[in-house]
Every structure is written in C-alpha cells, then in structure tokens.
C-alpha cells in the first residue's frame, strides 16, 4: 500500500512498482485468492516459527493483508488485480471464527485501503491565500541576493535574509503583515479574525531599492534592504511607517515546551498624530491619547485590554497576538513587544476616509456587533447584592411604583449558595433564598423588565456542572482564591464551552433569565485581579488549555467564554443575546459581549479615569461598554449614601452614565437605587430623574444609532478625534466626547457644591509618645483575631500600614502569616494647639480607638478599608492616653491613625467657600454648536462657559443635527406608537436614518426591519421625510411626527418642544415640511 501511494502520487519508479505488484499478486493468487496466508519466508516457503498476535499463534487469511494487497492493485497491469479489489470490497470487519478480532491493524489497513482505492486519496495542499500561517513557496528565488519576493493571489511575500514577510489583503483597505523566521508555530487558526484573504486587485512596482504594492485604497512600499514598510492611502499620502532601521525583532524561543517567537515591532509616527485604543489599561494615565505612554497589556479587574489602535491619520492597527504585551511610545518610536507570538509579528492595518471607516474595517475583519434587545439601552439596576428573590422583586416593584424608569434588574453572585461552599456558579439556585426562580422571573417580566444574572468561569466542586466538566478533565487544577472550592473551566475547549452552556441553559435561561453577566473573565483565579503581574502569574499557573499554553493565550479567555455563551444562545432560540463581561478582546463585539470596567472605587479621580478608559475601549472597536455608576466600592465617603459629598459625586457620575452606551448602576457597600434619594436628597433625585428622562426620550435616536453600530461598524460613544481628527486640540481631550453624531457631552468631574473632606492626614510621630517617652506608639502583635497568642513587640513612629500580601511583605512582629492576627498600640497623644481635633482610624478589617481609657471609635468587623473618627477638644500641650486595637481576618489589610488639627479644620472650611460651578468646554472647530439646555449658539474652535447646577452638565448639539425623540417612558419598549418629536438643529445640512424593528429578535437579519431618512436642507429650510423602506410584522404603520426647529430659548432641553411645531402624519410616504 505504501508503494501504491508513491506510485499514484509521484510515479517516479513506475516500471519497478508495476512489476512488484505483478510479482506479489501472482504469488498470492497461486496460494488461492480466498485463502492466501499472512506469513511466509520471503522466498514463499512456509514459516517454521509463526509470530503471535492477540494471544494466538496461527496463520490467517488476515483482513489487513487482504486490504494492503488489494491496494497494490492501483499499480496493477493485469486483470487478476481486480480479484484483489473485489476481495477487500466483499471482506467484513468482524471477528475471525475463533473469536480473535484486531480492529487496530486489520481495521486501519482496511480503512486506508478503501480510501486509496476510492481514487480520492489525494494531497490537500496548503493553500497560501487560505492559510497564510504557512510560509509560501518562493516563486522567484533570487540566488545571489539577500532579498526576493513573489506575488500571491492576495498579496506579496518578501524574503529578506532569514525573515519572511507576507503582506496580504483581507479587504480593499485592510492588509495583514506577518513577519517571522520562515515558520509559524501556531497550531490553531486565529481566534480573532473571521475575515479571509481577499483577491483585491493590485500591481507591484519595483525600483532598485523598493517594491510597492499598489491597490485602489492602499499602497504599501517595502525597503528591499530592511523590509520596513510604509503604508500610504490610495493617493500616496503616507499614513504610517515601520521604523526605517530595526523595525522588528523576532527571536525564536521555547515556552512550556512549545516553539514560539518573542517579538517586538516599531512604527515611526508623525509628531502630532493621536493614537487611541488598547482598551482600558487601568494603570495608564487618564488620557485617551496613547502617545508618550507606556502600557502593560494584561487583563485586570478594571482593565479591559484590547490590542487595537486607531490613529488621527485615518488608519488603525490590530495585533493578532494574545500573550503579555508591552507598548511604549517615545523618541525611538511606538513599539509593541510580545512575550509569545507563535506566528511572529502579525498585525493588520485598516485604512479609511474617515475614522469610522477604519473601525468598520476592523469590524469586517473580526465580526460585526449584533443588535441588542432595545431594552439594553434603558437603565440597568445592579447591586452587590440582592440576597433573596423577595428582595429583588421588591426592588423591581418599587421602581415601577415610584415611576423611576428601569429595563433590567440584575442578580449578583451567591444566588447559588455561599462564596465559601462548593456551589460557586454551578448555574443553580439556593432553594432557601430562591425557592421559585421561574415565579421570580415571571414577576419581573410582567413588570416589563428583564433579568440579568452573574455567572463566573470558576465552577464550584460540588455541582453537577463541575462533575460533568471533570469527566472530561475540563477544569484546571488551581482553586479560585475566594471559595477555595471552585476551579476554572477550560473555555478554550469546545466541549468545555458546550457543557458550560448546557448548564446555563437548563439552570438559568430555561428559568426565564434574559441575560448573562460574566464576571471574572480575565480569568480570575488567584487574586481579585488588581495587579497585572499577579494576573499573568496565576493564569500561567493554569498550565495548558485545549488550544495550547496559557503564555500564548494569556489575554483572550473572555473571548472564548463569551463565544460559548453567544453561540449557545443563538443555537437555542431567536432572542437577541446581551452579555456583560469584565474583560474584552478584539472580536468580542461579534459575541454581543459588552465590557464593563470592573470594581472601581468611588472618587472623583476614578470617575474621570472611567471616561478616558471607556473611550479607549470604544475606540478599540468594541462599541459596547459600561461601568459602575457611583463606583463599586464606596470606602472614602463615611456614611455612603447618607454622605452629601458622595451624593454629589454619584449625581455627576450618573449623568456620565446616562451617556454611556450601556447605562448601568452597580456597586457594593451602600444603597443606591435612585428612588431612595427622593426622601434623602430631593435636589439630587430631581437631577437623576431629569437625565434618566432625557435618556428615555432619546430612545429613537439611540436605537437608530445602535443599528448603525450593527450595520455600518459605527461607534456610539466617541472620543472627539473620531469626528474631529484634524482639530489638534481635540486630539487630547479626555473628559468630553460625542454621543452619536449630535451630542457633545462634557461631564462634570469635580465637586462644585459639597466639597468632601480629603482623607485626614496621618498623625505625625512628633505628637505621639510611647509609654516610656519615645516618639511614636508601642505596638504588640498577636496571632489570632482576638489577641489570642502574643507575638512580637515594637515601636511604630506613625501608624500607617498597608501590608501587601505575601510574598511582597513579610509578616510583622514575629507573626507567621499575614491573616488572622491582631495588634494593639499604646502611648500618648500630645496636642500642639488649643481647639477641637478630629481623631480617627482607617482600617481593614476591625478596629477600636480609646482616648484616656474611653472607647471613642469602634468598628470591629471584617470589611474593606474605611475611616471612622471622633471629635475631641484639647488644650495645647495636653497629653492624652491613646490605645488602638486592630484585627485582620482575610483579604486586604490596612491600619492608619489619622487626625485633623483645629487649623486643618479651619482651612477646610475656608476652602469650601471658594468653589466654582462654571465648566469650560472646548467646542471643536469645523462646526457650530448649540447649548442643549438653552439653544444658545456658539462657534466651534472656542471654549464655551456653562454654569452647572446639580441637574445640569455641559451638553452641546452640533449645528446640522436631527435628533428624533420620543416621550418619557418607564421602559424602553413602552408606547411603541407614540409620536416622535423631530428636533432640527439648523446651521448645516443634516441626514438621520430612523430605524425600527421588533426590538427583541434576530429577524432583522432576515430583512425584517424598516428605515426612513430625515433630510434637512439648510439653505432651503426644508425637512424631507423619505419613503419607508422595508417592513416587519409588528411595525407601527402610522405615526405622528412633531417637527420642531430649535431657536435660542425655544424647543430646548428635556421638555417637549412645542414652539412652532409642524405636525405631520407619516404613513410611509415622502413628506416635505418647510420652515
């Protein structure tokens, strides 16, 4: 059979091979076609010593021998060869008469023989344009030169010295550059790219020093000496270029026993060029423009790293590499380094006439974002956490009773059981607290709300889901750090995803759950993922997944797990998928996965960072992003929702959230359902209600924009460079953005009215005395949380501990471990001046403070760091006995003694009086602008000032906008046949395409939707409502349109515009309205 294969494929030894077949078959035929034995001496005589098989030692007319001798007939030149073919055709793969059966040798030889004889056994050749991971045969090897190239169907391959560089079109304005040392070590295709190499027409122009690939929309010039590329648009204008010298470093290395490359590649950028993207990198500066930054690209709790950028020069770059990466832009260039890039340097360049074209190129390559249910555009109420089904129903009903609009309510973790038992995310419900999940979801649905629920990639050991995964070895060994009874499932395994989804469906979706909230998708294992290096360490400890080692697949766990849940949901019904995930990656948009920025901590700085980080996510091509309004942790505002300074922060944060793609409240520590503020803080409540009403009034605008996201690769939340890339000033604005084509949003990111107090300073050593008169306090540590076993003693000059976990910190005071210990400090406080002091403790976990033997502060509980203080009046020089106690259970560990002197307190009060409530907003050049609240008009290219009471944020509308609005709603799909108010902001021509469909299903993919264009002609002062295109069963065929023109002081703000409204009844026929 081996010889027959060589004969049929290569025929290089034809004559001998035909003769061989004749000789062999003649000999065997002479022994009887139905009886020839399977063992002989080579000369054809009988064997004396028979070799055994399967415990038998006998001669057989074996199936394997019948099969291989039949395959020889491929070389047959005599009629007798057909007898051998008939013999194998009539043979059966079944036990011999004595019961012996050999499915391995006999079975495989039989299988191969039939395949060979079928005539279809052939070479499937690696096709360069279909699998560009494979280096392509050089068609024009230039013998005496270090450089050669060959033209392929979709691009060009260069060879320069030892490196091979493929430049392949994937679309008219999309090109892939893959450079390595002649071999790709990937074992699987890209998990990101869904596009294929494309036969884009191009020609190759050669000069002595360069070759240039010229297509309609892109030109790529290669230097023959270095291989460095220059990318130009169709007219030859330079977009960007690889650095002229040392544009790439490619080193073959071995990681986890598999070959791969460590790589870096460098671009030379233009001086003022803006680079945006890489997602949300939480240790990065609060600036959207990545120029001059250094970034470590590893998923973290708050970070959402995405290796994609767009440039103000109208191009984008996506690196198809999944390992740890570092980005650095400095005088030497913009460099991306990767720890493990098995294919070598591998990136895609997208060009376009507009910034949106660039992002659309990325979406074409990695998959378009499907539509969300319309209700995903309404308000989402989430909290850590509703603990029973009664409570979640009570909250849902209260929203309706208070008429505070809401579309989704969210169940956070531990509905399955506790965080410490083995039930973690088993897709099950705790029967005591959730006795009737189906009844609960029915109540929620009857209130016209949807239910989103938390799931994790870590699966509790004592669940049917874990048991089924374990049957296939599809959970990794390391335990999740909180439960210690849960393990991560292998989302890189198709079987793993299938089992995971099967339990989601049976346990959650079949009970009426509408949407999945996928927490900890970095993936979280050993810590809460605050520190990037710890995340990388812990993910690598998972070892090898179904596709390869975790060094090469470090970052995209989220993509694989959301792939499983998206494809699972698509397969079982026609309802639109809406998923929230804590990390994202290139391609995440095609799995309906919106990302959110993790467990933020409430502060004005964090709030501001959300905006810059979120804009870098949306400008990385992932349009759907959200965050925790109000901050997840609320530790630095004593009293939480009772603290008026926090409520100001919450209000401003909420106003920002109303202009996020997904509008979502979430957090722990405090109460934050908006209706609770109706009593606590009516001014704030009105501000929350106002902006919520605006969000719901904008539903026709928003839903139409979401269709543009799906159909055109559009982006809803837009850094100013997306619309104004040539306004150099706008390139560096990180705290304002466009929300769709019309609105410029500039959230207020500092306190104006209720200046919170800064943290109390740490009490200095100069004012502390130990019992024996030294500066500081005496401290004694104890093992156990209740001063159980005395350990070491010492002196703390100041008390300001923030012990990191091992191995970064050694346990203090003779302790063995950094958990389950306690400590006591003693000494004196000496007052430096007369007056009232504030003395307090910031601790995590429990603490107490005694002054002159009296307990003045106590919070003896396991909790995140918080500050508790007391007021005490002292005379200058007064010496107060001070004692402080602390215990650490688990988790973070902090202990600090702080104070404010009488002069500190006076300074704070004076500071409050000088607050300024005017916001200055830069309005980009190239357009005129309207103040949304007044319709006062401004020229672009200048700064506008706006006084901002608590219910107002600077909000400007671009002149030449059409904004369709609906009524105030309680949920996004309420009042489907209500009139639309069509607001025209004149000053330039404008077009808006209104989009409608059934709001819930994928029938739009089959063409069941309707659109009509609104066109404003600014010089003719006419609005043309175009004919309706398309239809769907639930379509509202007749709608009242109230068309209003904005003029200063009229038809402004949230209220319905009434001045000079022109009302028409639209039935799908064109209408022209003149102003």
């Amino acid at each position, binding site marked *: 059979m*081996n*010889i027959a*294969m*060589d004969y049929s*494929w*290569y025929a*290089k*030894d034809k004559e*001998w091979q035909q003769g*061989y*077949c004749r*000789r*062999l*078959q003649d*000999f065997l035929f002479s022994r009887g076609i139905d009886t020839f034995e399977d063992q*002989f*001496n*080579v*000369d*054809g005589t009988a064997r004396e010593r028979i*070799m055994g098989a399967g415990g038998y030692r006998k001669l057989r007319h074996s199936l394997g021998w019948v099969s291989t001798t039949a395959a020889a007939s491929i070389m047959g030149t005599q009629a007798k060869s057909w007898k051998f073919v008939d013999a194998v055709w009539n043979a059966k793969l079944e036990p011999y008469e004595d019961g012996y059966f050999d499915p391995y040798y006999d079975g495989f030889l039989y299988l191969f023989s039939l395949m060979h004889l079928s005539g279809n056994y052939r*070479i*499937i*050749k*690696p*096709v360069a344009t*279909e*699998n560009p*991971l*494979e*280096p392509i*045969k050089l068609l024009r090897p230039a013998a005496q030169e270090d450089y050669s190239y060959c033209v392929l169907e979709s691009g060009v391959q260069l060879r320069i010295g030892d490196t091979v560089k493929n430049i392949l079109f994937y679309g008219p304005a999309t090109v892939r550059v893959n450079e390595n040392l*002649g*071999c*790709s*070590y*990937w*074992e*699987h*295709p890209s998990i990101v790219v869904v596009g294929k190499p494309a036969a884009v027409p191009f020609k190759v122009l050669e000069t002595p020093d360069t070759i240039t690939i010229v297509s309609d929309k892109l030109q790529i010039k290669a230097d023959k000496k270095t291989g460095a590329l220059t990318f130009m648009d169709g007219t030859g204008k330079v977009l960007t270029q690889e650095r002229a010298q040392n544009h790439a470093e490619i080193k073959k290395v071995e990681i986890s026993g*598999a*070959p791969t490359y460590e790589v870096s590649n460098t671009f030379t950028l233009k001086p003022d060029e803006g680079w945006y993207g890489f997602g949300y990198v939480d240790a990065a500066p609060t600036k959207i423009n990545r120029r001059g930054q250094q970034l470590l690209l590893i998923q973290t709790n708050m970070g959402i790293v995405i290796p994609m950028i767009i440039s103000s020069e109208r191009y984008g770059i996506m690196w198809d590499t999944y390992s740890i990466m570092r980005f650095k832009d400095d005088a030497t260039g913009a460099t991306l380094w990767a720890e493990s890039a098995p294919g070598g340097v591998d990136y895609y360049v997208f060009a376009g006439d507009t910034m949106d074209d660039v992002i659309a190129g990325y979406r074409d390559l990695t998959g378009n974002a499907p539509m969300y249910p319309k209700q995903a555009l309404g308000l989402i109420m989430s909290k850590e956490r509703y603990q029973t089904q009664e409570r979640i129903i009570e909250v849902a009903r209260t929203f309706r009773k208070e008429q505070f609009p809401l579309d989704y309510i969210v169940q956070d973790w531990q509905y399955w059981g506790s965080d410490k038992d083995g039930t973690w995310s088993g897709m099950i419900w705790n029967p005591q607290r959730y006795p009737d999940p189906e009844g609960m979801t029915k109540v929620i649905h009857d209130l016209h709300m949807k239910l989103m629920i938390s799931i994790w990639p870590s699966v509790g050991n004592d669940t049917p889901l874990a048991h089924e995964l374990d049957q296939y070895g599809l959970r990794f060994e390391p335990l999740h750090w909180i439960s210690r009874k849960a393990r991560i499932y292998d989302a890189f395994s198709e079987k793993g995803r299938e089992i995971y989804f099967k339990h989601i469906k049976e346990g959650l979706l079949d009970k009426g759950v509408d949407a999945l909230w996928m927490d900890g998708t970095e993936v979280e294992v050993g810590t809460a993922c605050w520190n990037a290096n710890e995340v990388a360490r812990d993910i690598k400890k998972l070892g090898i997944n179904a596709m390869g080692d975790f060094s090469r697949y470090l970052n995209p766990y989220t993509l694989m797990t959301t792939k499983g849940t998206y494809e699972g949901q698509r397969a079982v019904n026609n309802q639109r998928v809406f998923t929230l995930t804590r990390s994202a990656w290139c391609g995440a948009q095609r799995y309906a996965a919106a990302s959110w920025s993790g467990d933020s901590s409430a502060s004005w700085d964090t709030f501001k960072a959300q905006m810059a980080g979120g804009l870098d996510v949306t400008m990385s091509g992932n349009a759907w992003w959200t965050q925790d309004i109000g901050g997840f942790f609320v530790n630095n505002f004593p009293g939480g929702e009772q603290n008026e300074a926090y409520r100001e922060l919450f209000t401003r944060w909420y106003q920002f959230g109303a202009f996020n793609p997904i509008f979502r409240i979430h957090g722990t520590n405090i109460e934050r359902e908006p209706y609770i503020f109706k009593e606590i803080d009516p001014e704030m409540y009105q501000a929350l209600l106002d902006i919520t009403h605006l969000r719901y009034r904008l539903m026709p605008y928003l839903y139409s924009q979401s269709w543009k996201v799906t159909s055109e690769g559009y982006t809803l939340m837009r850094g100013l460079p997306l619309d104004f890339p040539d306004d150099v000033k706008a390139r560096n604005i990180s705290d304002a953005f466009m929300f769709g084509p019309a609105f410029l949003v500039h959230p207020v990111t500092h306190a104006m009215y209720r200046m919170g107090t800064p943290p109390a300073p740490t009490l200095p050593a100069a004012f502390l005395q130990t019992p024996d008169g030294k500066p500081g306090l005496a401290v004694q540590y104890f093992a156990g949380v209740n001063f159980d076993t005395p350990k070491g003693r010492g002196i703390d000059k100041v008390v300001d501990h923030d012990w990191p976990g091992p191995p970064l910190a050694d346990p203090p005071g003779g302790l063995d471990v950094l958990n389950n210990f306690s400590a006591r400090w003693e000494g004196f406080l000496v007052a430096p001046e007369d007056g009232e002091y504030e003395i307090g403790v910031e601790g995590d976990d429990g603490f107490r403070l005694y002054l002159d033997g009296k307990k003045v502060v106590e919070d003896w509980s396991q909790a995140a760091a918080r500050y508790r203080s007391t007021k005490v009046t002292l005379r200058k020089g007064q010496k107060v006995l001070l004692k402080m106690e602390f215990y650490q259970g688990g988790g973070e560990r902090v202990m600090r003694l702080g104070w404010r002197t009488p002069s500190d307190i006076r300074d704070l009060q004076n500071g409050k009086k000088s607050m300024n409530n005017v916001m200055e907003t830069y309005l980009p050049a190239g357009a005129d602008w309207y103040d949304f609240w007044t319709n006062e008009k401004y020229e672009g290219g200048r700064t506008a000032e706006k006084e901002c009471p608590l219910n107002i944020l600077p909000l400007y509308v671009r002149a030449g906008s059409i904004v369709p609005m609906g009524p105030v709603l309680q949920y996004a799909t309420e009042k489907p046949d209500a009139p639309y108010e069509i607001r025209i902001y004149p000053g330039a021509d404008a077009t808006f395409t209104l989009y409608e469909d059934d709001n819930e299903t994928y029938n739009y993919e089959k063409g069941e939707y309707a659109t009509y264009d609104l066109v404003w002609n600014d010089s003719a002062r006419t609005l043309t409502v175009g004919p309706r295109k398309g239809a769907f069963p639930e379509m509202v065929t007749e709608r009242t349109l109230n068309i209003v023109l904005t003029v200063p002081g009229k038809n402004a703000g949230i209220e319905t515009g009434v001045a000079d409204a022109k009302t028409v009844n639209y039935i799908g026929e064109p209408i022209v309205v003149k102003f």
Partner: protein
Amino acid sequence: MDTGIDYYGQARRILDAMWSKDGTGGIRNVINTEHKMITFVPEGRGYNWTDPSYHVPAFFEIWAEYAKDGHEDFYRECADVSRQFLHKACHPVTGLTPDYAEFSGDPLGGE
C-alpha cells in the same frame, strides 16, 4: 479548504521535534541521517536497522515540497533511497519483504 485544523502547524511541530533529537537520553532522529532511511525506532540500537513496512517514499516527497524547514534536499534524497531500498528488500519472485531489515535490504541478522 478551511478545516479549522492547522495541519501545517501540527506537522511542523512533529518534524521540528524529530530534528531536535540529538541523542540525549538515547533518542536520536527517527530517520537514520547517515543512511537516510527510516529507523525501526529512534532509541538505542533500533536506530541501526529498519522495517520495510515503514518505507513510504511519498511522505518524504510531501515534506520536501511543503515542510519548509530547511531539510528539503535531505527529504528528496530519502525518497529516492527508500525506493532503492525497496528494490532490494522485496523478493525478486514473490515480492515479499522481511519483517525487519538491514539498511542494505537484507533480512535483519540474516533471518
């Protein structure tokens, strides 16, 4: 054809592993590089004889054409050597081969 399987990558990993064996732990290349023939086993003395049923000249042709691992000429030679070997190993009358053979094509140990 998009099978979802990277045949090239997997094949290269095996070939690269084959070439990485330098005798450490008694394991050498599965091809006897001196005789340019497939060995019985790459371990120990098994490196010094061959098995006629292991001879598949077409495999070497495929590697020569598609492996791109720098051993193209070697593989091409192996294909020719293998064909010559089969001429000697197959009995001139019956076409039968011994179970194990010297690289010369004679039965191993004169069996």
